[in-house]
């Protein structure tokens, strides 16, 4: 054990020495597991920011390279091991990740804090992470689901809806969202008649729907996944005539749902993270040019996470996490020169000249509270079998 420790310490030192001209950035995402369909575009988003910084030639600390690790999204032990490898063997100076809330919390406590490595997660949305001990090392470019809960309560109460039934997918995401919505909706004077979990991957949801229908409510809030139980619950509700309108959370957003359910879905509505900002359009153009889908979930957030880390390093003139993490909040928020995607070179110049910048990026980044995105949501409704944007919040 002692030898192993010595050896790993030695490797860490050597890695540290070798990286004088090379800045390594860990990209810790669930490249296998339940999110494996969206992580390639997330990884590509981070790579895009890194490539842009390298191509600009303005990053004086060295050449940036990405080292990928697999968080698996669900297995905390595997994610911790992968993060440990990134930090000790590869000697990364910061981590973009993790992706799912559970593993992100585990990596933060077991790897990032003991080793003093800063991390910015593009997609962990659990409200629990807002209050987690982080020694100032943890940020996220994704909004907390506490925020989504408030948005949902706002939208529903503005429509004059007073009581809803709620079903959520039985995991951290679904439970967290259900709780935050319940609190926010109650504060607005609304009632959740029943908050019932559903398991993903079942063929039959008639029993779940029977309970939801019995509890009643003006409409059904579905906090699940579009290609999983969420779709099954909606189908069974429509078949049995239990509910006819649905509120769809971010995980329920997708054309696939309209294709599967068809006409009865008209009149349902929801909100997804998104902005109408100039940065979002610009990022999508850049992504298309780079050969990946910029509209894929959390891909812009990943670009912003990587870009923020590198900007902060430049501002601190150090790759040490203790130094650069202190700069993140300043860079992300006003005042300063606004920076859009594709302007990272310009941003580095401004930083070198000592001018303050306000990183807008692909998702109109604005960090609040414990360093998490304030959250911009696109409210939409489904009319005539198409998703129509109602407005932005």
């Amino acid at each position, binding site marked *: 054990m002692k030898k192993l420790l010595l050896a790993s310490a030695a490797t860490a030192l050597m890695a540290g020495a070798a990286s004088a001209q090379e800045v390594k950035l860990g990209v810790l995402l669930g490249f296998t597991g339940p999110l494996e369909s969206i992580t390639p575009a997330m990884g590509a988003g981070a790579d895009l920011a890194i490539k842009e910084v390298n191509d600009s030639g303005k990053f004086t600390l060295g050449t940036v390279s990405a080292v990928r690790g697999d968080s698996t999204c669900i297995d905390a032990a595997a994610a911790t091991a992968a993060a440990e490898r990134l930090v000790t063997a590869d000697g990364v100076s910061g981590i973009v990740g993790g992706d799912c809330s559970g593993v992100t919390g585990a990596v933060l406590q077991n790897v990032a804090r003991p080793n003093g490595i800063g991390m910015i997660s593009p997609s962990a949305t659990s409200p629990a992470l807002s209050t987690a001990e982080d020694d100032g090392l943890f940020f996220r470019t994704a909004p907390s689901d506490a925020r989504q809960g408030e948005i949902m309560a706002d939208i529903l109460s503005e429509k004059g809806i007073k009581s809803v039934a709620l079903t959520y997918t*039985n995991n951290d995401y679904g439970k967290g969202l259900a709780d935050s919505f319940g609190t926010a909706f109650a504060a607005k004077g609304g009632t959740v008649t*029943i908050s*019932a*979990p*559903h*398991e993903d*991957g*079942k*063929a*039959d949801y*008639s*029993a*779940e*729907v*029977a*309970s939801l*229908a*019995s*509890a*009643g409510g003006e409409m059904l809030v579905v906090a699940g996944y579009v*290609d999983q139980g969420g779709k*099954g619950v909606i189908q069974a509700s429509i*078949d*049995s*005539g*239990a509910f006819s309108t649905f509120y769809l959370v971010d995980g329920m957003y997708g054309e696939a749902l309209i294709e*599967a359910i068809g006409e009865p879905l008209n009149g349902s509505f929801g909100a997804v993270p998104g902005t109408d900002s100039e940065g979002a359009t610009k990022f999508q153009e850049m992504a298309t040019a780079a050969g990946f889908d910029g509209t894929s979930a959390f891909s812009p957030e990943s670009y912003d996470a990587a870009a923020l880390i590198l900007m902060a390093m430049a501002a601190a003139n150090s790759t040490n996490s203790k130094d650069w993490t202190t700069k993140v909040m300043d860079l992300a928020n006003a005042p300063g020169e606004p920076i859009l995607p594709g302007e990272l070179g310009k941003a580095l110049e401004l930083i070198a000249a000592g001018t303050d910048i306000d990183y807008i990026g692909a998702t109109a980044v604005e960090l609040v509270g414990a360093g998490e995105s304030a959250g911009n949501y696109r409210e939409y409704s489904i009319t005539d079998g198409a998703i129509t944007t109602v407005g932005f919040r």
Partner: protein
Amino acid sequence: MDILNALVVFLNFVFVPGLAYGAQLALGALGVTLIYGILRFSNFAHGDTMALGTMVTILFTWWFQSMGISFGVLPTALLALPIGIAVTALFVLGTDRVVYRFYRKQKAAPVILVMVSLGVMFVMNGIVRLIIGVDDQNFVDGSRFVIAAGDFREMTGLAEGLAIKTTQVVTVVTALVVMGLLFWFLQKTRTGKSMRAFSDNEDLALLSGINPDRVVAVTWIIAAALATIAGVLYGLDKSFRPFVYFQLLLPIFAAAIVGGLGSPLGAIAGGFLIAFSEVMVTYAWKKVVTYLVPESMAPEGLLQLMGTDYKFAVSFAILILVLIFMPTGLFKGKSV
């Protein structure tokens, strides 16, 4: 008090779904119980036999649909069903020839055959996933409802709607026809009688000149047909996903054991018992009770015994209770 509305709510959310699910379980349990009675082992590959049969039926359904063949208001899958049964029967006969016959010749203990069927299960599992993939497959067509909830409300003027899906009617009718045919076959035909004789006492049956190979082959063919029909009905009514069929093995076995392994009547009773108790124990009775009692006594809570997550737990609780008090099941099957 509003008895009519209460009845409609009960029918819509408990009785109709429970009846369809029960019919599907009963058909599955019949296959398991036949194999147990005649071949004397628990066939763990039954869930995946259902998946295989359904997969073949789905592939032919898609082919029919692409050629523009349809079955009017009924699902096209019913046309493809005989082909599915034939292919599945050939497959299980082949499996018997290659795998089970070897162990039967050796007079292997039932537990060895159970383990063998576990191996067969994994192979079939893999084959199905390789061919059709792990995702949901939707193959239902034809008209969706016999009565839609909204139409029912308009027709009757009641506050509550009753929806009956075409697939639910198809399920129940097909199940009744198949069960009727099976009982007729076992009671009235020569082959059926020889199968029952073989099940009651193998040695005596052999002495009286019954051809064991023929009995085994017919049993497999019937089991394959039952599995395919059960699988296709389940897939039509809900949706097809290989993993779900693998999980179906649990309630199907619970149904077969509760009813009494080896007893066809028990399998049917067990199927409905498991289905209805899963739905009724996890149902929130608030709405039904609200309609039945005077307004002042309307319940505040949901009146739900346990969450719907515990569905599977219900079938196993019943299984354990039955095994403690009636070890041979409700209909005096063979003890496990």
